[in-house]
């Protein structure tokens, strides 16, 4: 049998989403950004939302997200994505608007914007990639950097006396009445990626049902910033990041639940 005989629709085991562009992603090997992009592209396609969707790309490694998914995008200034999303969603309330942000973008420079967008209950989805570091600028401390973690601006490890504590911003956000669904996921194994996809799907449905802000944190790796191999990063993330940022739903007000107490 020849290769061309194999390549037939009936033999298809796996295909990439039509919405994922034919672009080589600039992400480092093992980076979580790529997996989350894939999930988003799949869901937007499966839920038939391409025409309805406007994405907001952050400043951070995901700044070029607009090159990878075939939907309308706006690129926001650093940290301001929730404000930009607010503007879009208020003027086009029937669209599906999401912001996609890193931890520096969302939990440092953009803390005010995210807090107030969530507090207003803007009808948007927020994807929050928490890799505990500034990937794009070369590995400086992020607000979510773990205690003792070495970064370019904490060369002897994050010292809470100097830099404060790793910020569980998702827990704060879950307190805000404007949010309806707040969850923390990961994509480092096939199972966790599938679970994450189900969560994002639910979050999107919430937005479509106009239930206020849905917030999905994805605990992620940054092998370049952490200076580890992709495999070691996954292990380190499980042992350290997830220990501090445990996975699961923090709030599901559709079900009337405030699930986690951490």
């Amino acid at each position, binding site marked *: 049998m020849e290769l061309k005989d194999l390549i037939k629709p009936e033999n298809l085991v796996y295909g990439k989403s039509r919405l994922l562009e034919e672009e080589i992603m*600039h992400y480092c*090997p093992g980076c979580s950004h790529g997996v989350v992009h894939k999930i988003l592209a799949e869901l937007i396609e499966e839920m038939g939302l391409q025409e309805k969707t406007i994405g907001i790309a952050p400043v951070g490694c995901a700044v070029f997200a607009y090159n990878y998914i075939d939907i309308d995008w706006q690129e926001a200034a650093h940290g301001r994505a929730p404000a930009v999303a607010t503007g879009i969603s208020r003027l086009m309330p029937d669209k599906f608007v999401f912001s996609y942000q890193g931890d520096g973008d969302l939990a440092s420079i953009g803390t005010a914007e995210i807090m107030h967008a969530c507090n207003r209950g803007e009808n948007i989805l927020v994807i929050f990639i928490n890799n505990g570091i500034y990937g794009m600028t070369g590995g400086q401390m992020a607000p979510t950097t773990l205690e003792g973690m070495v970064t370019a601006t904490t060369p002897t490890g994050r010292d809470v006396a100097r830099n404060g504590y790793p910020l569980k911003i998702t827990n704060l956000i879950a307190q805000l009445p404007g949010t309806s669904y707040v969850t923390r996921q990961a994509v480092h194994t096939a199972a966790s990626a599938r679970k994450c996809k189900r969560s994002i799907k639910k979050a999107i449905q919430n937005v479509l049902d106009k239930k206020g802000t849905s917030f999905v944190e994805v605990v992620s790796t940054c092998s370049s910033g952490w200076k580890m191999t992709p495999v070691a990063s996954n292990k380190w993330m499980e042992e350290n990041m997830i220990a501090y940022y445990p996975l699961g739903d923090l709030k599901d007000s559709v079900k009337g639940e405030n699930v986690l107490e951490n």
Partner: protein
Amino acid sequence: MTEEMIIAGFGGQGVLSMGKILAYSGIMEDKEVTWFPSYGPEMRGGTANVTVILSDSRISSPIVQEFDTAIILNQQSMDKFESAVKPGGILLYDPNGVLTPPTRNDINIFKVEGTKTAIEMGNPKVFNMIVFGSYLKVRPILSLDNVEKGLEKSLPKRYHKLIPLNLEAIKKGRKLSGFALTKAIMNGEDLDQDQLISTVDREKNLNISYKSKPKLQEIDKFYITEDPIEEEKWSKIP
């Protein structure tokens, strides 16, 4: 004296650190120095390059259009910088990363088997220091003492134990007289080994004019040969 050079290859080949050692050695020699890298989120495995300028007087532009010397460690850089060498200038390259050898006949081209020699030394990582050694041979502008000091200064303390290995690689690089062979080919001459070595000895300054077009296809025949110029002489080079 002003030497304007470019070192170019893949990120991770030690391009920037070779430039740094060179610059620091230059300072030890009391020269003015500028080290200007290409910067940015270079994609992994992408190209990296650094312009290094050593001079006895105040250095002007960090942007250089025509280089005195180019040290080339991969094909992309060869494509980009071969044409940027001054006529009469020097191009050193490691054939390991270069599939299409340079073709210009108005510059001095030196093939340095850095990677191959480094593997023979049992430490592929020092290949850049071997190439660096060869450079110091063809452009004798720095003394061994100052290169050693430059190494000390540019390597963080925790890597100081690697200095002897690096020095060994540099010395090894100096012995690769592949350059003389290439030069002979470029001159269109069919010299035997002894004559070649005497060419090396005589040629301290490398402004060579060519009698005929080089037979570049022949370059691949030549590999490293030991150069008998004793090491002691090196330390006396100004």
